[in-house]
């Protein structure tokens, strides 16, 4: 058991005219090693949920357990949570501040208890795993890099602590297609190494390809929780939830409107392609 939310609610500015209920009665269990996609309209409560999971805010009601321990309990040691969970905020590159890439990536390890040599190993590993050349980039100012490179340096700073759970809030917004793929492949690689990935994104193509489970929030409530294969079947419902579908799912749907029978669980191009071929060759009803 990795993260468990039990009847979690959150209200902003309670008792004032600005009182806003952001989350209501969320029950959710995320197992170790999952790759979870979190979707929903702007303002549906996604970011609030993430901030509660990493302990930046406390729920108004309900409890959050990480590895079986209540993270808001009296005797819980927060340092344990910080070690386990790495959080990448939207536009993490705005948090870069050091004079060199190496120093910036190493900053979070200062009080980690790692020896100098261990920390240096972690920093090198983190810079390399995000696809940068350690020897070339280590002493460069992070501010002289391009946008895509800055983001990778910022993420390396999170990965250097080797978190068990990685939480990402819209990590691919603003990246170009190659940068997007490279970044998503990185999350897949980390996931294969046992890191739990929780990713907020509006990009249905990305989540269809990489996530194994999809969760959709709607006005602070859990509206959908299912394997990604089944998550994108009901297009009318997804539209009311303000969630898009992958291109492959869209094409399959358009084909079904033309009278072809297409399975509703096609969400990736690799699944669509054989169907397109068989329809184009006229061998499909």
């Amino acid at each position, binding site marked *: 058991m990795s993260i468990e939310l039990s009847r979690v609610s959150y209200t902003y500015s309670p008792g004032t005219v600005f009182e806003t209920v952001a989350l209501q009665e969320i029950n959710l269990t995320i197992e170790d090693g999952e790759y979870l996609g979190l979707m929903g309209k702007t303002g549906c409560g996604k970011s609030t949920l993430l901030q509660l999971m990493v302990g930046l805010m406390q729920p108004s009601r309900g409890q959050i357990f990480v590895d079986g321990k209540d993270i808001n309990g009296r005797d819980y040691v927060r340092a344990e949570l910080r070690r386990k969970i790495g959080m990448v905020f939207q536009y993490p590159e705005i948090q870069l501040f050091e004079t060199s890439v190496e120093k910036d990536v190493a900053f979070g390890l200062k009080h980690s208890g790692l020896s100098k040599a261990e920390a240096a190993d972690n920093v090198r590993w983190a810079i390399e795993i995000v696809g940068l050349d350690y020897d070339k980039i280590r002493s460069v*100012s992070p501010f002289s890099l391009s946008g895509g*490179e800055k983001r990778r340096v910022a993420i390396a700073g999170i990965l250097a602590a080797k978190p068990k759970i990685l939480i990402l809030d819209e990590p691919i917004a603003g990246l170009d*297609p190659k940068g997007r793929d490279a970044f998503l492949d990185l999350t897949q690689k980390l996931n294969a190494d046992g890191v739990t990935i929780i990713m907020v994104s*509006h990009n249905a193509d990305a989540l269809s390809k990489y996530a194994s489970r999809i969760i959709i929030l709607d006005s602070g409530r859990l509206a959908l929780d299912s394997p990604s294969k089944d998550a994108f079947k009901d297009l009318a419902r997804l539209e009311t939830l*303000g969630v898009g579908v992958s291109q492959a799912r*869209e094409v399959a749907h358009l084909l079904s409107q033309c009278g072809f029978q297409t399975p509703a669980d096609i969400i990736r191009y690799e699944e669509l392609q054989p169907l397109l071929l068989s329809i184009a*060759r006229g061998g499909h009803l």
Partner: protein
Amino acid sequence: MPIIQAKNLSHSYGFEGKHNRSIEDITLGVKKGEWIAILGQNGSGKTTFVKHINALLPVQQGELTVAGYDATNPANIWAIRQKCGMVFQDPNNQFVSSVIEEDLSFGLENYGVPQSEIPGHVKRALEIVGMPGFEMKSTHMLSGGQKQRIAIAGVLAINPDIIVFDEATAMLDPEGRQEVIGTIQRLHAEEGKTIIMISHLVEEAVYADRVVIFQQGRLVAEGTPEVVLSDVALLSCAGLKPPMAVRAYHDLQSAGVHLPTIPLTNKALVEAICQLN
């Protein structure tokens, strides 16, 4: 006479004593009322180029005229900024006030528009972005798409001829993205605005009159969406990916199925396949 004419435009950023060429030798003419989509990898110089168009960056080398003004002459900076507005990526970073009317009035006040005329401009700008009556609302109560439309309204209040969008939909959910794209389409079709749009989504570039591709600071290709977005080799060389429909077209072709034209959108792909049967 093109509304934007860049000739051999180059720009370098200086860091730590080294100079990195960000754009090199860019020559591009844009006709009044045209919609240009600029594609390219991160760091390819797209933003550096468009920042010249509303004089956020001075011309270092080369020539640039915007709406008849010579951008190399510093005296023209304010005139150029009035003719060319810019909408950025993050909707939250573009507000100067928490009340929409005050936010939209800000630019007008800076240009010395008489107080009595300001509410009229604000009202009209809100109507164009499809948010009439939002004057007294608070900016932080808006959705992402609404925030970007208010940012567009702030630009429109000054009535520019050219509007530059620098990845203005990147942070939005599908609904917000649709709202902003719909607004851009209206600005182009009904208001006759010249649109320069940077995007990482080839699906958005399909709406443009012309697509321009940047690679390592150079303009490497330009043409209609039909020509540029179907050129897989060119796109891949520039670090981009074709629309899924184009990929499907080529996969069908190599399997011996020929569609009459290369579809750019999913709708066009499905229509072409349905016609085969």
